[in-house]
């Protein structure tokens, strides 16, 4: 909200620079977001008379004007068209400087010399308006200083009014705050005006059919008005406040709204059918065209102002085009009403239509204000548009509420604020804020809450008033208290942090992607999960249309993006949440997942950098990380089973298990997918559930006796068909070996002519150890024999001797 300080000073006296005032306001609850100095640097500018003009010979959109600057006539080229001969306008003569620093010099525009410049409001820094040059009254003599005519310079405060303080959405509301801060009195304008002729009640009837939505409705009728521009002082204040002047009657309603916070609406009384106002809910499907020219379909949740036949306004939001004030308007029905906050908000949201009026009503407008505002507006309309006001007012007030009383216990002030505030100071603050102290004893006081302070409902609200007026800088920094409650169980968070640190220790970089993703991105990954996708009803864009059901799609994207930024070697992980909709129940689900992605020579020493990365390298590198992770985080060994996944290469995709618990899927990215990103090396990806990986924290660890007797290590080498897996060999060895076999380690794989086509040679070291004695070579040889026999028998292995 913008407020010119000069307007504020009409209602309250204070001695302070704009900066000092801004500081006081900011530290008492109304943040000053900006101090705008309007009209500074206009010193050299004057009023020029446009004596006559013609079209520029070489440019259709330019005019050649003869401007009189008070002493002589000058030729000036101008691009605007909003003037006629004899108008007076803002004129920058040669040598003058505009507020934006531009210096006016004699220059040629399309071949014709221009001796100065006729200025628009934005060029003067007065507003954002560039619709035409700034015109002043025709009675102003040419040559007058522009600053004198405009009443400038002005300082305008830009304020952020919090949602609860609707009473501050006006100049008078802010003046009331300033008066409380500076200990001065609030001065309200006189709202008396002459009334004559018929009584309003004879000219208009008002019925409220939805009293739960309309707390009060007042109507006045003004007749014999003459539409025209509003006075310059009013236009100036409207513009400084960011409102465009339109015509005298409409300007008055806007001016009074800015002044006191009560939205007003003026109907052309001749266009109100049956001269009656009915405040009712719209009928479902009922239509109406609002002032902005949009035809709207209404629902029965919306409140309308109707005449005898049809809706003429959307209550509290916007007037209707059908009863709008026109140039020919003579009689006006002036509405000053109070509509409920939730209903106004819902209507505004449902129609996507917000206005200065709805902005105020949905934060709450004091119903007690309606009549004062109506009088103030009537007085100003009569003053600026002539005519006469009918006698009296129609005032239907179903929502009148009794004044609220709230008690403040002094001990509670200290309890909440941590400071002692003297009782006298507390009462002084309340009185300054018009929270009249009605009774008081040693324990506390009871105040009567004025109707405009809709936000003050309970004791804590009163204590907040004390805090902000007394000054939050008074609150000391108390030392940290050492008392500890039993506390919330936060072991999962700490386990999660350890998991993250382990992944970093394994050499991976943590990434973070959005929870949203594009539908097409999922489709490209071959997803057949459309029914499970959690599609956002109101996404910010189609790129963020779905809550991600997997971390893998973005992991691939991240790897690809890095590749295109010339990072060819990378190992990433993300700990993030995925989301879905249960296809059977419709329930929404979410869980944490871990994704890992690796490409290029990640993990390999530099000196080996040029050696090609094989699919085995990448898969086994990823597997190594998963093995460590699985053992460390679950206490169990990793197992893999063949699997299929839309984005993974067939034959290179596995399910990951910790013992029997399924963790997720790992594998190599499909070649076609990585080639879209011009990634030539294999890409390893995995996605795992997080919960099983957090068991490390809960895992029981216990000591086992360290072996006391030495181990014997023997080797066995065998040749088997390619189809025989390492896992099968180990299983066969384990099954045939006694308990003394503690470790089986694969240390060599060899293929070649000596082995034969379709076969491979593998070499294992076998470690035997007994817990209660030193083993002999003979015993170990016997163990070897059993194992060799089993390998030959079950796997048809050829044992390589020596």
């Amino acid at each position, binding site marked *: 909200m913008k407020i010119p300080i000069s307007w504020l000073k009409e209602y309250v006296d204070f001695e302070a620079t704009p900066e000092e005032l801004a500081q006081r306001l900011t530290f008492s609850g109304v943040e000053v977001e900006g101090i705008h100095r309007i009209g500074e640097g206009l010193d050299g500018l004057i009023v020029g008379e446009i004596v006559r003009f013609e079209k520029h010979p070489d440019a259709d959109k330019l005019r050649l004007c003869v401007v009189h600057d008070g002493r002589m006539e000058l030729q000036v080229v101008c691009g605007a068209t909003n003037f006629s001969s004899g108008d007076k306008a803002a004129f920058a003569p040669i040598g003058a400087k505009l507020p934006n620093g531009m210096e006016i010099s004699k220059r040629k525009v399309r071949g014709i010399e221009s001796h100065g410049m006729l200025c628009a409001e934005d060029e003067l820094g007065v507003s954002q308006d560039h619709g035409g040059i700034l015109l002043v009254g025709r009675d102003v003599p040419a040559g007058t200083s522009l600053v004198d005519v405009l009443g400038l310079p002005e300082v305008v405060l830009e304020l952020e009014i919090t949602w609860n303080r609707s009473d501050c959405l006006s100049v008078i509301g802010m003046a009331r705050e300033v008066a409380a801060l500076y200990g001065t009195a609030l001065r309200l304008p006189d709202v008396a005006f002459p009334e004559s002729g018929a009584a309003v009640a004879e000219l208009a009837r008002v019925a409220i059919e939805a009293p739960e939505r309309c707390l009060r409705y007042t109507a006045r009728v003004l007749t014999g008005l003459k539409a025209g521009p509003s006075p310059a002082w009013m236009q100036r204040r409207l513009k400084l406040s960011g409102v465009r002047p339109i015509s005298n009657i409409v300007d008055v309603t806007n001016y009074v709204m800015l002044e006191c916070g009560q939205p007003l609406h003026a109907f052309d009384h001749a266009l109100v059918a049956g001269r009656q106002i009915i405040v009712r809910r719209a009928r479902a499907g009922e239509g109406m065209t609002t002032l902005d020219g949009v035809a709207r379909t209404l629902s029965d949740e919306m409140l309308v102002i109707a005449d005898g036949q049809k809706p003429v306004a959307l209550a509290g939001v916007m007037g209707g085009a059908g009863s709008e004030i026109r140039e020919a308007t003579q009689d006006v029905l002036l509405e000053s009403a109070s509509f409920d906050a939730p209903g106004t908000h*819902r209507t505004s949201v449902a129609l996507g239509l917000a206005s200065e009026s709805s902005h105020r009503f949905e934060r709450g407008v004091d119903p007690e204000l309606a009549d004062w505002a109506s009088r103030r507006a009537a007085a100003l309309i009569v003053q600026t548009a002539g005519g006469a006001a009918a006698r009296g007012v129609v005032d239907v007030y179903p929502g009148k509420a009794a004044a609220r009383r709230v008690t403040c216990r002094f001990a509670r002030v200290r309890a909440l604020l941590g400071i002692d505030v003297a009782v006298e100071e507390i009462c002084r603050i309340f009185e300054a804020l018009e929270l009249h102290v009605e009774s008081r004893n040693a324990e506390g006081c009871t105040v009567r809450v004025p109707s405009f302070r809709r936000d003050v409902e309970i004791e804590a609200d009163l204590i907040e008033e004390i805090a902000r007026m007394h000054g939050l800088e008074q609150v000391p920094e108390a030392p940290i208290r050492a008392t500890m409650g039993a506390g919330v169980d936060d072991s*999962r968070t700490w386990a999660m942090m350890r998991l993250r640190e382990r992944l970093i220790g394994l050499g991976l970089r943590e990434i973070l*992607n959005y*929870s949203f993703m594009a539908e097409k991105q999922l489709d490209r990954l071959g997803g057949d999960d459309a029914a499970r996708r959690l599609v956002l009803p109101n996404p*910010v864009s189609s790129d963020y249309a779905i809550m991600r059901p997997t971390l893998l799609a973005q992991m691939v994207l991240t790897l690809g993006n890095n590749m295109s930024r010339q990072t060819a070697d990378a190992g990433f992980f993300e700990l993030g949440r995925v989301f879905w909709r249960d296809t059977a129940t419709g329930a929404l689900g979410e869980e944490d997942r871990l994704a890992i992605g690796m490409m290029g020579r990640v993990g*390999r*020493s530099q000196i080996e950098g040029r050696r090609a990365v094989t699919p085995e390298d990448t898969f086994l590198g990823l597997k190594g990380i998963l093995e460590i992770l699985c053992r460390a985080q679950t206490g169990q060994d990793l197992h893999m089973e063949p699997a299929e996944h839309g984005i993974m290469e067939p034959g290179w995709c596995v399910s990951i298990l910790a013992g029997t618990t399924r963790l997720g899927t790992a594998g190599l990215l499909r070649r076609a997918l990585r080639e879209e990103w011009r990634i030539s090396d294999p890409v390893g990806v995995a996605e795992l559930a997080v919960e099983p990986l957090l068991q490390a924290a809960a895992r029981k660890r216990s000591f086992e006796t360290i072996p006391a007797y030495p181990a014997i290590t023997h080797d066995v080498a065998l040749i088997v068909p390619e189809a025989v897996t390492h896992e099968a060999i180990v299983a066969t060895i384990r099954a045939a070996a006694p308990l003394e076999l503690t470790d089986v380690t694969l240390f060599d794989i060899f293929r070649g002519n000596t082995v034969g086509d379709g076969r491979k040679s593998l070499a294992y070291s076998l470690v035997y150890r007994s817990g209660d004695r030193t083993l002999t070579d003979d015993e170990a040889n016997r163990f070897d024999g059993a194992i060799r026999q089993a390998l030959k028998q079950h796997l048809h292995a050829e044992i390589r001797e020596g």
Partner: protein
Amino acid sequence: MNAAEIDSLTAQAVAEAGAAGTADAVEAVRIRYLGRKGLLPQIMAGLKDATGQERGAIGRSANAFKTQVTAAVDARLAALRGAIQQGPVFDYTRPGAWRGPGSMHPVSLVIAEAVRIFARMGFRVAEGPDIETPYNNFEALNTPDYHPSLDTTDTFWLGVGAAGLAAPPYQASQLLRTQTSPVQIRMMQSHPPPIRIITPGRCYRRDTTDATHSANFHQIEGLYVDRQVSLADLKGTLASFAREMMGSGVGVRFRPHFFPFTEPSVEVDFSCHVCAGKGCRVCKHSGWIEIAGAGMVDPRVFGKVGYDAEAWTGFAFGMGVERIAMIKYGIPDIRLLYENDARFLAQFE
């Protein structure tokens, strides 16, 4: 032997030791000059016969003979041993072979640091789901359904059933939490006071992405409910956090504000850690940086979770993790945090 003769023997012995080609040859030199039957005992014997001033000179030369020849023999032996064992010189400046440059994301770094700082002050960590009910996210937090933060322009509503959004109000619909405050509600519902928690987590608001806005972001909120907790405790806690997080010289100040769930409510500024409050580009020349929203828990919130607002008071605060990361590390654009450029991530190793 006089002193000059001893000195020339010294030079001769040192030269022979230096020229010896094998360890055996060095040993032969040692025996010849320093051995029990070598020249050294003869020199020492000669010293006994010497007289007067001659004796002093011979003594000094004899000492020099002993130390210099011993040193020459040891040095030659060491040189021969080294030459045999070392071969070519090892270049330890080569790159190491173990390469795995892991790094924590700056958002996680800030959360981890904040969690540790608050844990030292007695705060436990609580987390909750991203998909929330309007009750936990708004109603229990004393936010009426006509507050603009509920609008579909601000909040991601997830729709009713599979049908999408109904008309407002949306109570039947779930939503993506706009703050981590619903975790406070969940914790207060399940734990009696006193309670002291912080709630880090991901939140969602329908902001259009630009340099300072992101439709998903992270928050850390805190809640402390106990006997006689006051605004002064809040200030002390946040001041302590400010010093540990941003630097020992950083202070805090409160400005009055409004939040539906706290009363009184304040906005919290930290003094600028870059310019120490003098004013610079980072703090937009004000000396202060807005960091958090906070206040005393509204008694109506206590009413919703069944806490006795007469017996207990409490404070709550909330701050944006990305914002802190940007301020602390000087990151100019929030989007950098979600682009996952390895060159960016590497800066946080």
